[in-house]
C-alpha cells in the first residue's frame, strides 16, 4: 500500500503528503475491512492511522459515523498483532469523546490490563481510564490499585497518571488509593517515583499538614528522579508561600538540604540539564543569602554548556527582573555573552545587565547596544527599551544619555509596538524630570512631523497641550501642532485643535494668534474638527478663566462607560428634567496619569482596565437588589476588600464598602470552609459607634461549602451632624447552622442559630471621596473659587520627613495628588501638596497642603469646595 503512495508522490513531484487527499467518507468506508475474517493487521493498522490522522487534522466526525467505525474497530481485538492492538487503544482514546457507548470495550481492556503481555497492560490501563466514568470506576477500582503497585514500571506509571486524570471527576474514589501511591513513591524507577509524588500531592494539596509530612519524609529518603526533585522544590516553595512572611525554619532547612543534595547529584553525573530552574528556588534568595551564590555557581556551570545556553539565559533574565542583587555576582559572565553571535542571547544578556548594572557602566552598555540594535527583531528591541526605561527610573541623572539613545532609536524603522514603547518611555522621562521637558518635547515634535501612527500622534499632541504652555517659549510648538491640522487625518487634526486651545487658554499673549488658527480650523472638512474648533474658540473668546479651566484644561472626570449607560437610560425615559452630569459615576482610576511600572507595560496596564469595569460590575449587582433601587447611582466602591477574619478560620468574611449619595452599603463576601456544615440566612449585624443608622440587612440565603455568597447591610449616613463621617462598626455574623454529610451533600432538617464575631470595620473620610485627577490644578483651584474656603494650620509631631507626611495625608484623605506633587524633591525643607477629589454627592473638593519641615512637620491646609460641608469635614477630620 505504501508503495502505491510512493508512486503517486513521484508523479506529483515527490515530498508531498500521502494523507493529503484523504476523504473522510472514503476512509470510513474502508473501515469495513475490520469486519473481514481473518483480520489483516497491516491493512487495518493503516486504516486506523488514517482515521487518527483525520481526527488529528481537526476533521469533525459525527457521532453516528464515529460510533459505527468504533464498533467495527472492536472486532480487531480478536487479532493479537501488537501494533494493531496498540493502535486500537489510541483510537479508543481519541474517540472516547465523540463516539457513543465506548464502554463496550471495558471488558476487553480489563482483560488486557490484567493479562500476561506487559506491553499491553500499561496502555490498556490508560485507555480504560479514559472511557471510565464515576459509576464504573468502582468496578475496576481493585484493578487500578493493583496496577499502581505493579512491578512493571510502565503499568505502575500508567496507573498513577490515570488516577491523576480521574481526580478531576472522581476525587472521592481516587483518594482511597493513597496507600498504593505511597508504596509506588518508593519505587526504584525514576518516572514511577515522579508520578507517585505528583499524584500524592494532587490528592493532598488542600491538607497542608499532610503535604508538610510528605515533604519532610521525602527529604529524609531522598529522591532519584530530577523531575521529582523539581516537583518537590515547587511543593516546598508553595508551602512557604502559604506560610506567608514567616517562613518556618523547618522548611528552610529542608530546602537547603535538598539544594545541597541536588548539587551533589549534579556533580556526580552530568545531569546539569536538570539543574533547577533558578526561578523555581528564587524565593530562597531573600530568606537565605548564601544560596544565591549556589544558584549562581550552578548557573555558570550550565552556561558553559552550549546546548542549554539559551535555556539558562532566559531564567537568568527573569531572576534579574525580580531580584537584581542575586545576579550581580555573575555579571562578568553576562558581559561575555553580550558579544554572542545569537542576537537573542546578546539582547537578554544586555538587558539583564542594564537591570543589574551600576550607574557607571550605563554609557558603555548603551554604546554596545546601539552597535547591534539594527540587527535584532522588534520584539527584542521592545525588551531593550523597557530595560532602559526602568533604568531611567533608577538613575534619573542619566536621563540625557538615555533620552538621546531613545530618540536615535525612534528615528529607526520599526513597528507600532516598538514605537509605542519608546514614546511611552520618553513621555515618562519628561514627566519625571522637569529639566528634560524642553529637549524631550522638541524631539517629539520632530517625531510627529513624520509619524504614521495616529494613536501616537494624538498622544503626543495631548502631551504637548499639557506640557507645552508651561515651557519658556510655548510659541515654538505652535508651528508643529498647526502643521498637523494641515497635513494629517481627521483624528490627528482634532487632537491638534484641542492642543492649540490649551495653549490659548493658558497664555494670553498668544490668544489672538491662536484665535486666528482656530478660525481657520472651522473650515475643516471633518465634523469633529469643526465642532471642536468652534467650541474652543467661543470658550476662549469669553476670556473667563473659570470657563477655560472647566472646558479646556480639565476635561471630563466621569467614567466613559458609566456616562454611556446613564445617557442610554435617560433617552429611554425622556423627562422634563435636564440631564444631570452629577448622576454619572466618576472614573475610578485617572486614566491620563499612568505610571510606567518597572514591570513591562503590557502587564501594568491590564489591571487598570479591570479596575475601570469593576465599579460597573458592582453597580449592576447592587442595582439588581430591590432594597437598593432608590439609593441613586453608586458613587464609590472601596478598592480592595477588607478581611474581617483570618484567612484560615471556619468562616472567611471580606467586606467591600459602597458609598451612595446619602447611604452606604457594606457587602460582605462570606465563605464557609467547613464541609460538614451549611449556613443559612447569613447576615452581618453592625453596631455603629455614633451617628450612623443601620436600615436593613439583606441576608445571603445559604452558604454551601467553599461557595462564597454575599450578604449586604444598608446604613444611612448621619444627617444631623454631617461632619461625623468617620466611624467604627463592630460586626457580628449571625446565621443558622445545619449539619450535612460532606460526602453526599445531604443536609439535616434541623438547624440551630449561631453567631461569629468579626473584626471591627472602619469607615473613614477616604470612603466618601472619589479620586479625580485635575491635570491643571491651578485652573481648577480658580474655578472652584473661594466661596467655601477654609484654612488652618496643624503640627504633625509624629512624622519626621516630608515624604512620610505626604504619604500619610494622601492615604488618609483618599484624594488624588495632582501636578506630581506627591513626589517630594530631595533636600527640600518645604513642599506643597495638591489634592483633588469629588465628595459624595458630586461636590468638587480641592485641598492644598503647604508643608514645612521644622522639628516635626508643620502643615497649612487650605480646602475649597463647591459646598460648605465637604470643607468642614476635611477640616474636622484632619484636626
Amino acid at each position, binding site marked *: 500500500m*505504501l508503495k502505491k503512495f510512493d508512486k503517486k508522490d513521484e508523479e506529483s513531484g515527490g515530498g508531498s503528503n*500521502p494523507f493529503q487527499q484523504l476523504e473522510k467518507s472514503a476512509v470510513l468506508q474502508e473501515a469495513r475491512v475490520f469486519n473481514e475474517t481473518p483480520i489483516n493487521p497491516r491493512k487495518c493498522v493503516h486504516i486506523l492511522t488514517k482515521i487518527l490522522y483525520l481526527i488529528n*487534522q481537526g476533521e469533525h466526525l459525527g457521532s453516528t459515523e464515529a460510533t459505527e467505525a468504533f464498533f467495527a474497530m472492536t472486532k480487531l481485538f480478536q487479532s493479537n498483532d501488537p501494533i494493531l492492538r496498540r493502535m486500537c487503544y489510541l483510537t479508543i482514546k481519541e474517540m472516547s469523546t465523540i463516539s457513543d457507548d465506548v464502554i463496550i470495550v471495558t471488558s476487553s481492556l480489563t482483560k488486557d490490563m490484567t493479562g500476561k503481555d506487559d506491553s499491553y497492560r500499561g496502555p490498556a490501563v*490508560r485507555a480504560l481510564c479514559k472511557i471510565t466514568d464515576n459509576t464504573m470506576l468502582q468496578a475496576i477500582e481493585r484493578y487500578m490499585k493493583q496496577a499502581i503497585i505493579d512491578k512493571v514500571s510502565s503499568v505502575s506509571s500508567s496507573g498513577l*497518571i490515570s488516577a491523576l486524570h480521574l481526580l478531576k471527576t472522581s476525587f472521592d474514589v481516587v483518594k482511597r488509593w493513597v496507600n498504593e501511591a505511597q508504596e509506588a513513591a518508593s519505587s526504584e524507577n525514576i518516572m514511577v517515583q515522579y508520578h507517585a509524588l505528583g499524584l500524592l500531592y494532587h490528592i493532598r494539596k488542600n491538607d497542608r499538614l499532610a503535604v508538610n509530612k510528605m515533604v519532610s519524609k521525602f527529604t529524609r529518603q531522598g529522591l532519584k528522579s530530577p*523531575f521529582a526533585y523539581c516537583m518537590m522544590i515547587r511543593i516546598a516553595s508553595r508551602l512557604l508561600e502559604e506560610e506567608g512572611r514567616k517562613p518556618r525554619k523547618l522548611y528552610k532547612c529542608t530546602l537547603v538540604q535538598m539544594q545541597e543534595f541536588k548539587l551533589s547529584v549534579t556533580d556526580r553525573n552530568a545531569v546539569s540539564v536538570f539543574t533547577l530552574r533558578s526561578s523555581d528556588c528564587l524565593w530562597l534568595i531573600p530568606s537565605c543569602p548564601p544560596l544565591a551564590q549556589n544558584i549562581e555557581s550552578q548557573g555558570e556551570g550550565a552556561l558553559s554548556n552550549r546546548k542549554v545556553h539559551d*535555556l539558562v539565559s*532566559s531564567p537568568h533574565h527573569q531572576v534579574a527582573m525580580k531580584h537584581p542583587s542575586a545576579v550581580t555576582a555573575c555579571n562578568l559572565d553576562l558581559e561575555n555573552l553580550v558579544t554572542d553571535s545569537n542576537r537573542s542571547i546578546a539582547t537578554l544578556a544586555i538587558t539583564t545587565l542594564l537591570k543589574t548594572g551600576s550607574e557607571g557602566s550605563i554609557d558603555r552598555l548603551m554604546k554596545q547596544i546601539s552597535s547591534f540594535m539594527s540587527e535584532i527583531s522588534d520584539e527584542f528591541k521592545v525588551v531593550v527599551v523597557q530595560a532602559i526605561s526602568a533604568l531611567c527610573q533608577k538613575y534619573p541623572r542619566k536621563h540625557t544619555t538615555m533620552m538621546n539613545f531613545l530618540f536615535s532609536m525612534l528615528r529607526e524603522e520599526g513597528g507600532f509596538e516598538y514605537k509605542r514603547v519608546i514614546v511611552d518611555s520618553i513621555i515618562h522621562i519628561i514627566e519625571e524630570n522637569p529639566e528634560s521637558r524642553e529637549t524631550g518635547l522638541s524631539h517629539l515634535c520632530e517625531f510627529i512631523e513624520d509619524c504614521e501612527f495616529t494613536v501616537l500622534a494624538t498622544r503626543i499632541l495631548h502631551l504637548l497641550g499639557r506640557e507645552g504652555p508651561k515651557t519658556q517659549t510655548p510659541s515654538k510648538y505652535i508651528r508643529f501642532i498647526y502643521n498637523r491640522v494641515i497635513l494629517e487625518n481627521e483624528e490627528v487634526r482634532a487632537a491638534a485643535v484641542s492642543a492649540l486651545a490649551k495653549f490659548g487658554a493658558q497664555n494670553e499673549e498668544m490668544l489672538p494668534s491662536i484665535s486666528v488658527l482656530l478660525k481657520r480650523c472651522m473650515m475643516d472638512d471633518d465634523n469633529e474638527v469643526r465642532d471642536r474648533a468652534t467650541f474652543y474658540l467661543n470658550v476662549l473668546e469669553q476670556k473667563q478663566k473659570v470657563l477655560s479651566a472647566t472646558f479646556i484644561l480639565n476635561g471630563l472626570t466621569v467614567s466613559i462607560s458609566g456616562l454611556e449607560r446613564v445617557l442610554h437610560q435617560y433617552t429611554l425615559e425622556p423627562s422634563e428634567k435636564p440631564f444631570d452630569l452629577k448622576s454619572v459615576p466618576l472614573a475610578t482610576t485617572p486614566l491620563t496619569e499612568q505610571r510606567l511600572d518597572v514591570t513591562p507595560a503590557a502587564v501594568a496596564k491590564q489591571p487598570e482596565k479591570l479596575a475601570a469595569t469593576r465599579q460597573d460590575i458592582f453597580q449592576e449587582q447592587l442595582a439588581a437588589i430591590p432594597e437598593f433601587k432608590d439609593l441613586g447611582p453608586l458613587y464609590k466602591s472601596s478598592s480592595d476588600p477588607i478581611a474581617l477574619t483570618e484567612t484560615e478560620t471556619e468562616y472567611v468574611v471580606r467586606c467591600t464598602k459602597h458609598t451612595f449619595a446619602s447611604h452606604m452599603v457594606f457587602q460582605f463576601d462570606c465563605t464557609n470552609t467547613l464541609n460538614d456544615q451549611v449556613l443559612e440566612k447569613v447576615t452581618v449585624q453592625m453596631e455603629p459607634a455614633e451617628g450612623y443608622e443601620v436600615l436593613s440587612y439583606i441576608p445571603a440565603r445559604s452558604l454551601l461549602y467553599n461557595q462564597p455568597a454575599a450578604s449586604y447591610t444598608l446604613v444611612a449616613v448621619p444627617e444631623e451632624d454631617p461632619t461625623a463621617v468617620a466611624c467604627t462598626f463592630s460586626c457580628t455574623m449571625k446565621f443558622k447552622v445545619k449539619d450535612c454529610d460532606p460526602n453526599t451533600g445531604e443536609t439535616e432538617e434541623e438547624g440551630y442559630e449561631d453567631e461569629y464575631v468579626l473584626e471591627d470595620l472602619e469607615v473613614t473620610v477616604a470612603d466618601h471621596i472619589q479620586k479625580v485627577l485635575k491635570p491643571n490644578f491651578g485652573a481648577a483651584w480658580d474655578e472652584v473659587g473661594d466661596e467655601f474656603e477654609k484654612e488652618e494650620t496643624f503640627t504633625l509631631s509624629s512624622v519626621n520627613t516630608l515624604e512620610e507626611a505626604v504619604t500619610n495625608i494622601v492615604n488618609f484623605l483618599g484624594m488624588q495628588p495632582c501636578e506630581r506633587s506627591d513626589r517630594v524633591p530631595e533636600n527640600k525643607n518645604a513642599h506643597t501638596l495638591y489634592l483633588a477629589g469629588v465628595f459624595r454627592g458630586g461636590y468638587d473638593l480641592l485641598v492644598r497642603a503647604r508643608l514645612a519641615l521644622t522639628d516635626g512637620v508643620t502643615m497649612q491646609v487650605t480646602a475649597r469646595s463647591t459646598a460648605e460641608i465637604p470643607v468642614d469635614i476635611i477640616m474636622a477630620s484632619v484636626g
Partner: protein
Amino acid sequence: CQFLYILCLLQEPSLYTVKAVFILDNDGNRLLAKYYDETYPSIKEQRNFEKNVFNKTYKTDSEIAFLEGMTIIYKSSIDLYFYVVGSSQENELMLMAVVTCLFDALMQLLRKNVEKRSLLENLDGAFLVLDEIVDGGVILESDPQQVLQKVNRVDENPFSEHSVTQVLQSAKEQIKWSILK
C-alpha cells in the same frame, strides 16, 4: 512585599507540564498535533497558534521561543519542525527533555531519516511514540530507549537476542499472511 510578589509568580506544583506537542512540515502544515488542555480549545485557534509559532521560529536556529504567554521549545530536522509547548512558568528543561526524547525516539524509529516522507510512512509509529512520551499533559517517559521498547520498536540489531526472536516472529507472520492471502 517584594517577597510576596515574587511568590505570586511561582507556579502551582503540578504533574501537568505539557500543554501541546506538534510536528509541522516546512510549510508550517500540521502533520501531527496533540493539545492537552483547553488553552487552545478550537481547531481554528490551534492552527492560528501553530502558524504564529512557525512564523516566529522557522528561520531561527535557537531552541526556545516565548509567544502568547507560552514557553515553546523546538527542534528541526530537514523538513520537519518539532514543538513542545508549556506555560510561561514551566521549567524549560523539562520541556526540552520531552522534545529531545520525541526526536531521538523518532530518529531510531525512522532509521535516521527524520524527514517528512519517512514520518508519514511511519505515522502509526509516531502516534504510538508520542502516546508513550506524554499522556494527557503529564510526562510519561523521557528516555527514548524506554519509549521504543514500550512500542515494540527497538532498533533491530541482528546481534541482539531479542531482535532475533522478533525477526523470526515477523518472518512467521509474513509466511502466515502470504498463505492466508
